[in-house]
């Protein structure tokens, strides 16, 4: 199997390792969960570390590789669908994509500017054009399919006239280019930034796109002075609860963490989120999250773009693929090979 990230699994033991190549693992027969659930488990896994996406895709098409992670670009998914050897396991997951805005720095400190920015992103063009519909529009601060999402909130649409109207109401001047930081080497991050830039150009705001390595970006988020004006951010499922998204991002007690890099502070929202965190009553929590979401959207704290659908490409002969949104992983111990 070819993977672009390493996973730990107690059910398989490391056999050989070479950082430039990858590693092999053999089945650990005495794993504590036992193997009774699987008649023909996979005995050996060969993980390869392959840098170039096209290599992975062609390997899958040829049948050299039997699976890979679910982060392939949309065009590659299309190619794989056409291949006889490959089956795409499609799952809606919980991983939202946003552009964070530094709410504490002018001009993003002005809500009208933030709304203008939110109206200037071509959501349809990006989600359905660039990403070819492999993602779902997600206008709220937590995944659509999570409980706690307010009903009927349409969010922002791509509307240049509205954007200009909002900008006209702003009380701060925009006299400098805004810096939009992206993850270096990540093509989707780049394309999203370009879509943002193209939209902002139309309302007279210039943008400078700055690629940086991920560790640099998360480091920046620790302090408000070093946090970028704007940066592209995915928030995935560490634990399946609304607090994972809206809580950690918009409750000001989390300031200094990378999720909270919008440096947003609203007393009412803080109060709602704190109460929701402490409560054990799901209905009550849901109501609190719904109200908080509406405020955050109205305040345009960040630009909310999409929720991910995961497409796990696997060789048709691999059976038993089970999906879990946490960590976007699959456990090999459920799989077998025909």
């Amino acid at each position, binding site marked *: 199997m070819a993977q672009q990230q390493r996973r730990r699994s107690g059910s398989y033991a490391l056999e*050989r390792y*070479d950082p430039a*190549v990858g590693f092999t693992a053999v089945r650990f027969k005495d794993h504590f969960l036992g193997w009774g659930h699987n008649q023909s488990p996979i005995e050996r896994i060969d993980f390869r570390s*392959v*840098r170039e996406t096209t290599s992975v895709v*062609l390997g899958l098409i040829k049948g050299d590789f039997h699976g890979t992670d679910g982060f392939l670009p949309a065009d590659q998914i299309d190619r794989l669908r056409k291949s006889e050897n490959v089956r795409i396991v499609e799952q809606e997951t919980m991983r939202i994509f946003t552009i964070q805005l530094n709410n504490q720095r002018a001009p993003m400190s002005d809500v009208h500017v933030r709304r203008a920015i939110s109206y200037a992103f071509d959501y349809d063009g990006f989600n359905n054009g660039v990403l070819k519909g492999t993602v779902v529009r997600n206008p709220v601060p937590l995944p659509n399919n999570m409980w706690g999402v307010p009903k009927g909130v349409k969010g922002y649409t791509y509307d240049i006239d509205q954007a200009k109207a909002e900008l006209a109401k702003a009380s701060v001047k925009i006299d400098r280019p805004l810096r939009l930081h992206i993850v270096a080497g990540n093509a989707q991050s780049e394309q999203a930034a370009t879509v943002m830039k193209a939209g902002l150009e139309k309302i007279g705001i210039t943008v400078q796109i700055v690629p940086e*390595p991920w560790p640099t970006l998360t480091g920046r988020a620790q*302090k408000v002075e070093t946090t970028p004006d704007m940066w592209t951010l995915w928030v995935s499922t560490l634990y399946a609860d609304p607090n994972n998204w809206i809580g950690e991002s918009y409750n000001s007690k989390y300031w200094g963490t990378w999720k909270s890099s919008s440096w947003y502070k609203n007393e009412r929202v803080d109060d709602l989120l704190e109460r929701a965190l402490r409560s054990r009553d799901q209905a009550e929590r849901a109501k609190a999250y719904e109200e908080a979401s509406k405020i955050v959207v109205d305040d345009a704290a960040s630009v909310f773009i999409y929720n991910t659908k995961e497409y796990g490409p696997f060789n048709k002969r691999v059976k038993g693929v089970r999906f879990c949104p946490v960590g976007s992983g699959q456990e090999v111990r459920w799989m077998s090979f025909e």
Partner: protein
Amino acid sequence: MRLLLFALRRVAWLAPTLLGVVALTFAISHVIPADPAALLAGEMASPEQIARVRAEHGLDQPASVQFVRYLGRIARGDLGRSLYTTRDISFDLVRRLPATLELTLAAMVVTVVLGIPIGVLSALRRNSLLDHAVRGATIAGLAIAAFWMGIMLQLLFAMTLGWTPLGGRLTGFPPRTITHLYVLDALLTGDWSALGSALNHLALPALTLGIPAMATVVRFTRAGVLDVINSPYVLYQRAMGVPASVVVWKYVLRNAAISTITQLGLVFGVLLAGSVVVETVFDWPGLGLWAVNSIVMSDYNAIMAFTLWVAVVYIAINFLVDVLHLLVDPRESAA
């Protein structure tokens, strides 16, 4: 004796140049940046963290003191720590070296084995169709971006025809390790499938790296052979009735070989420089790809170490080539 004197003179030239290159990398990493400590500490470091880094690395000392310390570290083989992997850079460097070495040698083979005969033939058949075609090809070869040619070769041979893999060094795990050069190891251990795989993976990268160098070699060889053909000695031999084939084999080729050795230094420089983009295109896990990864991760220490390494190798190769040239063509020692 003459050889010894020459060698000593060249060494005398070598040392200051090496020192100069170390000074250059020092200047780039310590003098140019507004705050080298901030670069080392990373973008997000607090002022206290930066100050600590500055003290730890002695970056608050005057430049001359820093340089002496830098020199001492380099002399001990300590190239610093990678900002990204946090391992010793010399460790990473030695680990990635065999892949680049294998690729460079393969490209060298392509360059020399194809380049010299083509150059000789082109000169012997001057102004023929072959000659014009070769000259056109070399001019074109020097105008093509190596990274683009690599991608186009991939497009044709790997993606469309499926004759070669897209990239990487090997499919499957390496043969038993002796030299870390897969082709050699596979041969030595009789691991035929690994041999086939290694050669298959080497084909496109070696071509991509070798062809621009080949263009240079063909040009030089052709010029060298033309010079020799028109020299009085050869004209005399032909006038005396010595058959052309004998003259070609005995005299022309030998002199062509000498002129080629002269260019080896230049060729090696082209190969070293080219390895960065070629390894990137073909996902070849050598020093070039390591350098590019370091670029993406802003690992300044690694980039500096790479620069220094390449310079040292280039200087060393040129020195060896000079010595070799001297051995082969003693007339030059008069210079």
